[in-house]
């Protein structure tokens, strides 16, 4: 059976849609359509504060923003100086502690990336991203 070029493209496009939908259903609990971060990997300012001393705050913003102001006792760990800052962070980390990473605001990606690298590269558990980032912290300070 022969088809015109446009029809061939359409048939392939529709065919690919079928397993794609299947994949979306299969992986529905592993990925969020609303945010790059799973709801289970996010934490609000109030929740993080409730953890008290059991938290290590990680500031994923650039050095100059960290120098200007940051969450008390937060450690700087950004992607620009990842290799340099990671050992310092690991020295401060201890098993059982929760890690809360934040960047400037709700729309920034740095905290997500740093959290992802801490999970994947440093193999650390209990890494969370602060919802709303530094802006949200300031509002609730």
């Amino acid at each position, binding site marked *: 059976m022969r088809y015109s070029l446009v029809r061939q493209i359409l048939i392939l496009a529709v065919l690919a849609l079928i397993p794609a939908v299947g994949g979306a259903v299969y992986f529905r609990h592993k*990925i969020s359509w609303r945010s790059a971060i799973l709801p289970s990997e996010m934490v609000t300012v109030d929740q993080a504060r409730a953890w008290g001393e059991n938290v290590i705050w990680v500031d994923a913003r650039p050095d100059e923003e960290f120098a200007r102001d940051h969450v008390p006792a937060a450690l700087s760990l950004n992607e620009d100086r990842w290799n340099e800052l990671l050992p310092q962070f690991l020295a401060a980390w201890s098993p059982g502690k929760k890690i809360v990473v934040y960047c400037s605001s709700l729309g920034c990606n740095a905290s997500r990336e740093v959290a992802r690298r801490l999970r994947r590269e440093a193999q650390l558990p209990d890494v969370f991203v602060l919802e709303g980032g530094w802006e949200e912290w300031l509002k609730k300070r």
Partner: protein
Amino acid sequence: MGRVAEKEMKTTPNTQPSTSNVEPSAGATTSNIFWRTVDFVVAGIFIYAGAIKALDPVQFASDIDNYKTLPWPVSVALAFYLPWLEIFCGFSLVVRSLYRGALSILTALILVFTLMTIAAKLRGLDITCGCFGHASQNWSFTAHLALDLILLAAVIFLLGVRRRELAVNT
């Protein structure tokens, strides 16, 4: 349907070889074997790349998002869809069914991948393209670009060769 397309459907094989009574020359056979091999290599690369990404759409969505050009929900949708499109197009090249459609889609895809890779480099983004999942995580920009350009050249040549065949057969 347009008259040209109708004529094409009636007269040109999409999957079958020419029904002409003229025996193909040795040169034509060699050339055919060569292009068929290119078909298989290109198909293999796209099927492999698609399969790896289809198995880990979460990582692929993140890789697409790293280009910082699309909203997150679109990245997720593409992460589920593009791998399967690559796989189906790859199989189409192998079985030579919906062949021109598959080549056209692959040409468009590889063109977009190449442009996005270059744009990301120009914007100073240090990212992995995610083209081959974790396998390509440590590839340099040059390696990505080289593979993209080789694939682009291959699919464009295949399109050209098949178009010429089409013209000869009609």
